C-alpha cells in the first residue's frame, strides 16, 4: 500500500454546529515549522463572522438556561473527547510548532484545564455571590449572570493551551463565543472544533473561524450584538481598533496578551468572572 494517496482533511470553519467553507470561498496556506505546506485554511470573511454571531446569539439563552451542573458535564465530555484524540493533537502540534515533549505537555495541560473549568461551573456562582448589608429592611444579594455573546481572538503562541484557556471559562459561565483562531496555527483549532462537535456542546455555543485578524477584528469589535471581546494576541494596532469600536455598545473588553498559558496560575475562577455581570436584587423583609 506504499503508493496509496493520503486522504487529506479539508479544514473548514465551524459555525452553528456545522462545518462550512467560507462564504467568500477564499482560503490561505499555512506552513509547518519546517516551512513546508501544512494545511489550507478557510479565510473567513466578515459575513462568516456575522453569520457566526447570529447563530451564537440564538444559542445563548439555551446555553445559559442549562443547569450549571449540566454545563460542567459537557465540559468534562470535551475533555474525554480530547483525551481520545491525544495522539492526534500531539502530532499536529509537533508538526506545526513544537517539540514532541512540549506538545505532550501542552495537550495534557489543555485536557486538565477543561476538567478544571468543568468543576467550576456549579461553584463559581456560590463563591462570588454576596449577601450585602443594607440599612433598610431588605434582603440584598448579588449574583453573577453571563455577559452574553463573546468574541475571542486567540494568540499564536501555545495555540492549543491558549484556545482551551480562553474558551473554557467563557462557556463555563453560560456565555457563547465566536473564536477567531490563530492565523498561523488555525489547523489545531479546526481539530478542536471536531472535538467540540462530538461532545454534546450545542451548536452555536462555540464557533471557530480561521482567517486573518486584520479582516475580522474591526467588525468583531464593532458588531452591536457582541457583548464582550477577549483579545489575547499581541498587536497594539488591533488593540486600539478594539478599544475604539467597542464603545459603540459599551462592550466588555479584556486583553490577555502576553499570558503564559502553560503556567499553573493561568487558570482560575477569575477568568470566569471576567465574563459575568452582577445582578443585585432588593427583596423586602419584615422587621
Amino acid at each position: 500500500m506504499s503508493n496509496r494517496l493520503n486522504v487529506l482533511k479539508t479544514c473548514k470553519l465551524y459555525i452553528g454546529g456545522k462545518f462550512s467553507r467560507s462564504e467568500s470561498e477564499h482560503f490561505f496556506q499555512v506552513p509547518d515549522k519546517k516551512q513546508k505546506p501544512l494545511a489550507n485554511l478557510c479565510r473567513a470573511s466578515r459575513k462568516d463572522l456575522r453569520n457566526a454571531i447570529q447563530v451564537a446569539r440564538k444559542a445563548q439563552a439555551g446555553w445559559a438556561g442549562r443547569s450549571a451542573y449540566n454545563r460542567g458535564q459537557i465540559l468534562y465530555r470535551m475533555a474525554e473527547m480530547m483525551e481520545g484524540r491525544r495522539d492526534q493533537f500531539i502530532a499536529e502540534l509537533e508538526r506545526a510548532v513544537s517539540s514532541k515533549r512540549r506538545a505532550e505537555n501542552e495537550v495534557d495541560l489543555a485536557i486538565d484545564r477543561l476538567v478544571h473549568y468543568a468543576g467550576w461551573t456549579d461553584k463559581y456562582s456560590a463563591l462570588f455571590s454576596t449577601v450585602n448589608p443594607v440599612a433598610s429592611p431588605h434582603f440584598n444579594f448579588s449574583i453573577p449572570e453571563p455577559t452574553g455573546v463573546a468574541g475571542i481572538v486567540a494568540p499564536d503562541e501555545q495555540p492549543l493551551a491558549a484556545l482551551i484557556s480562553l474558551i473554557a471559562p467563557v462557556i463555563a459561565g453560560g456565555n457563547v463565543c465566536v473564536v477567531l483562531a490563530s492565523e498561523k496555527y488555525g489547523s489545531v483549532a479546526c481539530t478542536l472544533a471536531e472535538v467540540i462537535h462530538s461532545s454534546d456542546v450545542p451548536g452555536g455555543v462555540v464557533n471557530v473561524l480561521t482567517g486573518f485578524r486584520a479582516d475580522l477584528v474591526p467588525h468583531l469589535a464593532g458588531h452591536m450584538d457582541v457583548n464582550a471581546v477577549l483579545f489575547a494576541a499581541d498587536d497594539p494596532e488591533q488593540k486600539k481598533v478594539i478599544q475604539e469600536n467597542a464603545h459603540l455598545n459599551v462592550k466588555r473588553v479584556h486583553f490577555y496578551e502576553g499570558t503564559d498559558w502553560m503556567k499553573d496560575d493561568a487558570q482560575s475562577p477569575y477568568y470566569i468572572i471576567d465574563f459575568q455581570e452582577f445582578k443585585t436584587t432588593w427583596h423586602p423583609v419584615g422587621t
Partner: protein
Amino acid sequence: MQNTKNMRIPDFKLTVPVDQIGVEERAARFRTRSIKKESKLFALKLALQMVDLTTLEGMDSPGKVRQLCNKAMYPYEADPDIPKVAAICVYPNRVRLAAEILKGSGVHVASVATSFPSGMGTLESRIEEVKYAVDEGADEIDMVISRWAFLKGEYNYVFDEVATFKEACGPAHLKVILETGELETYENVRKASDIAIYAGADFIKTSTGKISPAATMPVTLVMLYAIRDYYLKTGSKIGMKPAGGIRDAKTALHYLAMVKETLGADWLTPDLFRFGASSLANDLLMQIIKQKTGQYQSPDYFSIG
C-alpha cells in the same frame, strides 16, 4: 377600478398549466441576486415603505396596537431619513383605535375581515364584518376566500363571494388572501389568483400567516404571472402581497428583484406591492442602519412590535 362587466371572464373550469420545475428554478434564481451599496440602501428603504406591519393575535390589546401604530409612523426615530411603512394590519375591533392614531400620517389602516383566518363564517356575518371594518376607518380590507369551496370545484361560489365583498368594501381597497398553503398545487394558486382578479380584487395576497407554508417565492411568482397576464389583456394593474414567513431583508430584496423582472418597475411601489410581515420591518431597519454606519446591528437597539 377595472370594469368587469365588459370583460370576458375566462372559464375557470379550464386549467392554466404551470410548469412546476420551471417556476421553482426561476424563483430560485432570484435568491442568488445580490444588490450592493447605494442600490441596496434604496431597495431596503423601498421595502420598508412596502411593509404592512401586522399583528393578528388574540392577545392584541389596545396598548399593543397603539405601540405598533407608533412604530409604523416612526420606525426608527434616531434617523429621520427612515421612511414610514405602508400600512398596519389589525383585526376589525382594533381598526378605530389605529385609524385615530394614524390619521393624517399617510399610513394606511388595513383590517382582516370575512372570518379571518378560516373564512368559515356565514356569508352574512362576513359581509357585516367587512362593512364594520370600513365604517370603523379601515381603508384596506384583507379578505380570505372559502378554500373549502375552491377545493370542491365551486369556483363560481368563490368568484361571487369576492365580488360581494368588493361591493361591501365601498371605497376601501380589497386584498384577497388565497391561503396558498391550503391550495396544494401551483395550478390551483393560478386559478384562485385569476378568480380573485376577475372578481374585482385590488390586491392578491398569498397567506394568512396562520398556515405553514406561508409565502414562498415560487407561489408568489405564479401569482405574479397571473397579474402580468391580466395586465397584458386589460391594461389594469393588480397589486401583490406576499405575507407570512418573510423575515429577513435579504429575502425581501429577492422578492423585489422578482417583481421587477416579472412585472416591471411600475410595480415597485407601495400602491402595487406589499409585504405582510411583523418581524421583517426590524430586520430592514437593522440592515439600513448597517448600510449607513458600517456596523452590524443588534435587535437590542430597535423597538419591538
